[in-house]
Structures are given as C-alpha cells and as structure tokens.
C-alpha cells in the first residue's frame, strides 16, 4: 500500500480543504490583516505537501500535476514582473493604478492585492516542486557511494 495508514489518509483528506481555504484567506486579506502572498502561498503548498506525505507522490501529482505547477511557478513570477513593469511605464509604482485604498475594504489598496495573488501562486507551486524534487530524487545510500568510490 502506498503512503501512510488509513487514519492519516482520512484525516488528511478531511483537513486539506480547510488548509487551502485558510491559505487563500491569508493571501486575499494580506493587505488588510497580517499575512500576504508569501505566507498564504506557503500554507497552500503545505496542503499539497501533506497530501504527498500521506498518499504518496502519485496522488499528489494527480491533484496538482507537475506541468501545472511549473506554469504557475513561472507564470506567477511573470505576472509579478508585469505588474511592476506596468508601474514603471505608467509611473505610478506604489501609487496604485487600480484606485487608492480604502480602510477595511477588500478590493482596495491598489496593486498590493494582485501582487499578493501572483506571489502566492509562485510560492505555493515552487515550494511544492521543491518538495517533490526531494521526494523523487532519493538520497543514494552511503554504502552505494563507498562501493562507487572503490570501483
């Protein structure tokens, strides 16, 4: 059987949805409350990493295929750069091309929300990819290394 015991799998399936929702909350409210793209992205990545730990990498990759993760990884960074470049060309960096902020409104504070979302995609997918790389490339045993050295 792949992955961990039934208990762990069941609890994981139960919890994962909440973790993703909480991560999305942290991302979307990052400009109003403590949090932001990076923190929220890490939490979302944790949900997928948890799936990978409990069910093994095949199930995790069926939930978030490697290709999608790569696209989100580079795409998030590219969107971040484009928003920044938009600021440079229009000349309103930090100055919120999308309208000034209002206190306690979700769709306020201009560029910070899109920037948070972009960075969340980037962080979530790249952390997941880093972890999957660790899972795929097993460490070679010390014995095998010694045998190689002697051969």
């Amino acid at each position, binding site marked *: 059987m792949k992955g961990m015991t039934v208990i762990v799998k069941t609890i994981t399936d139960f919890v994962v949805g909440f973790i993703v929702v909480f991560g999305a909350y942290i991302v979307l409210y990052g400009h109003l409350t403590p949090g932001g793209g990076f923190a929220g992205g890490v939490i979302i990545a944790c949900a997928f990493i948890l799936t990978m730990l409990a069910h093994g990498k095949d199930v995790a990759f069926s939930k978030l295929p490697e*290709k999608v993760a*790569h*696209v989100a*990884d*580079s*795409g998030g*960074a*590219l969107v971040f*750069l484009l928003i*920044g*470049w938009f*600021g*440079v060309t229009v*000349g*309103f*960096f*930090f*100055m919120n091309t999308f309208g000034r902020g209002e206190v306690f409104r979700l769709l306020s504070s201009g560029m910070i929300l899109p920037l948070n979302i972009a960075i969340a995609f980037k962080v979530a997918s790249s952390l997941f990819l880093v972890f999957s790389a660790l899972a795929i490339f097993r460490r070679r045993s010390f014995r095998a290394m010694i045998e190689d050295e002697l051969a």
Partner: protein
Amino acid sequence: MNPLPLYVAIPLGAAFLIPLLGVWWKKSGETLAPLSMLILAVMSMLQVSRPAAVYYMGGWVPPVGIALVSDGLSTLLLIAINVIGFLCILFSLKYMQTYTGLTKYYALFMLMVAGMNGVVVSGDLFNLYVFLEVASIASYALVAFGVGAEELEAGFKYLILGSVASVMLLFGIGTVYAVTGSLNMADVAREIAMRFGGEMNPALLLAGAFFLMGFGLKAALVPFHAWLPDAHPSAPAPISAMLSGVVIKSLGIYAICRVFFNVYGIGTGAGEAVIFANGMIAFALLSIIVGGLLAIGQWDYKRLLAYSSIGQVGYVMLGIGVGARVLATGGQLSIAGLAILGGLFHMFNHVAFKSLLFLSSGAIQYATGTRDMKQLGGLREKMPVTAFTTNMAALSIAGVPPFSGFWSKLVILVATIKAGHTAIAIVAIVFAFVTLVYYIKVQREILFGSVSKLVEKAKEVPALMYVPLILLAIACVGFGLLYPMVGVYILEPARDALMNGAEYIQLVLG
C-alpha cells in the same frame, strides 16, 4: 525613455518566460535567450554615448525612493556583462546540447545576468545586496548544472562560502544603516562626508572590513579564494566563461570600487580610509603570488585558467588599491588616476581574454572529450581556429607586447612605481613572468607539439562555437591597438566616476 530599468526587466522577464513557454515548446530557451541578450548587448553599447543617467523608481526621489544609477563605471560593466553574456549564449547553443533540462539552464543564465545588471545599476546598498544574491544563487545552481559528484561538491562549496560572504555583507550594510540612517549610496556618502567630515567612526571601519571581506570573496581575492578553483572548472564552459569573465568582476571588483570610492569617499575624506587601501593592496599581492604559483602546477586546463583568474584579479585590485592609497594619503591625482585606469583597463581586458580562454576550453572538451593537458597536444593542426584564437588570448593575458594585456599591466606597474611602491612593483613584474610561464605551458601542451591520440580524431568545432572565439580574439588585439577609442569612450569615464566621489552624490541627489 530612460533604459536603466530595462537592464533588469528584460533578462528577468526572459528568465520567467523561458520555463513557462518551455512546458510546451522545448526550444524556448534557445530562441528567447539569445534574442534578449542581443537586445541587451546593443543597448549597453549605445549607453556609451550618455553614461551618466539616473532613474527614480516610481518617481520617488532618494533617499526615500530607490534610484537606478549608471555612470562611467556602471557603463563599463554593463558592456562587459551583456556582450560577454551574448557571446556565451551563442556558444551555449551548440555546446549545451549534450546536457538535459536546457530550459532551466537558459532561465538560470538570464537570472544571473539580471542579477549582475541589477548590481551594476543599483544606486541603493540593500538593492545591491538583493541583486548580488540573485546573481549568486543562480550561479550556485549553474556551477552544479552537470549534477555529477564533482559538480555538486563544487556547487555546494561555492554555496556555503558565498553565503558566508552574503551574511558579512548584510551585517555591513546593517551597520552602515545604523550609523547613517540611509541605504541610498549617494545619501550614505553625503552623510559620511558631512556628519563625520569624512572621518571614519569605528562602526564604519567595521562595516568597511565586512565589505572588503564579503565582496573580496565574490571577487576571489586570495584569503577568500577557496571556492573558485573548484567552481569554475566544474561549471559548463559558457558558465565558466561568465563566472571568470564577468561575475567575479561585477559582484566583486565593481562593488568594492563603488563602496570604497563613492560611498566611503576615499580621497575626499580623512586619512583613516587608507587602511582599506592597504587591505586592497595586501589582498591583491597575495592573489598575484598565490594564484600565479598554484597555476603553474595544474594539469587540468580549466583549473589552470581558474587559478590564473585569481592572479589576474590580483593585478586589477593592485591598480585600484594603489590608486586608492594615493588618493587617501593625498598624493598626486594624476598618479592615482593612472593606477585606477590601469586596474580598470586590465579588468576590461581580462573580461575579453579569460572568457575566450574558458570558451576555448569548452571547445577543446567538445571536440576531444578531455581537458587533461597531458592527453592533449598538436591542436594547431586539427582545430586551427580554436588554436589560433586561444593562442591570441594566451599571449594577451601573459602580457606579450602588441596585445592588450601588456598595455594594461604596463600601466599598472608604471603607476605603482610612480606611487613609490617599488618593491610591490617588482613582485608584480616577477609574477607577470610567472603568468607567461604557465601560458607557455598551455601553448606547449595543448596548441603545439605532437598530435596526441585524442586530438587525432578531433574536428574543428561548429561555426556557432568558433564565431564567439574569433570576436573575442579580435577584442584581445583591438583593446591594445585601439586604446585611444576604448580609453576615451569607456575607460576614462569609469576612472572619472571613481576619482570624483562627490560627483556621484550630485548625480543622484541633484
């Protein structure tokens, strides 16, 4: 429109676009990377016509906002980085075909270029640090790109030592911020000049020591050089050429120059700054001696080149250090200018010939499958273009007269003697001959002599690989013979940027 943000934005955009498109289109790297490097190379050459420029990010004026600044020194480095980057990418197109994961290679390459361009145009100490990290982390990954045991070990070593340097730099920047209350380089310089009257308080001296150590490690000056002889040979040849050709200069030497001449204001301030100049000269001498002596005994061609880089960086640092010392002790400005000009000239030449030598090592490895000098020989007959261009670079770096390396070393030595450091100059002259010795070894073992078994089967490399070699060989001769042009348009603005630290403050703060 001011092009300065483009120097960071274009390579950064390419670095993200290449892996994104690479998911569907395997050739994205081979197409986008040369294209963006070509644009950058042309842009950087056009920059010569107006070297001094400032761009305020978002229109926020320093010290609040972040400024991108280019002056003569930045322009010199921008040309070196982007032109060599373009040639190395051209070389990569064929050379890297034996590797897998090419989209990642081109993405990392562009990321490294973005980091270096950022370091060079940044007008802000902390931004300089961030870009330095971007370039360094990309280069750690690129050194280990072959993922063999040797490459991974070299990459890991480089990673650990590089991180130590980064921590030192961050600590130094924090100290400067604590003392002056600003991170903008021009503003820090003004604070140091006005509040302390150029006098170094102990915290600034400590920060200066951290800068010298941190940037010195990136430049591979001798007490901090241990990573280089492993990292440079292990990387793929175009990356070795980038590392030796421009990375150690933009992250190391450029940063040392900028911090000590423009921020600390050697020359405008009190005499205490002379301690940094003495440090530079001491590290430079050690580099010349250790790099030269260790290079003689190497039989791995790329390892020999790596040790030679240490020695040559020593010469660059010697010129700049002597200039700094003359300025700090209130000597003649003309001598200081000559020394700095010599250092910058040698740096510019070294960019050309060391990149050429590392690319040629790649070509030799591509054609014969080895870089062990004992198994090579008689390359002149089988690979005439590679052998001829390599020969030009070897003669140039060894300081044989009509080539560029001779003139730059001559200027450094003349300035050192004029500044009254005859003993140092004698050591430098002796080790210039040592350089000649190990490049004669290169000629004897690789280019001339009897044709070895491996070379017999070798064919000349494809045109995409030897065209960059030819262009760089022309540069090796051209910089020497066309000095009036190179000097007036590229080197002298750079020297003036270093000599007149106060002008930098004016340029940025208006």
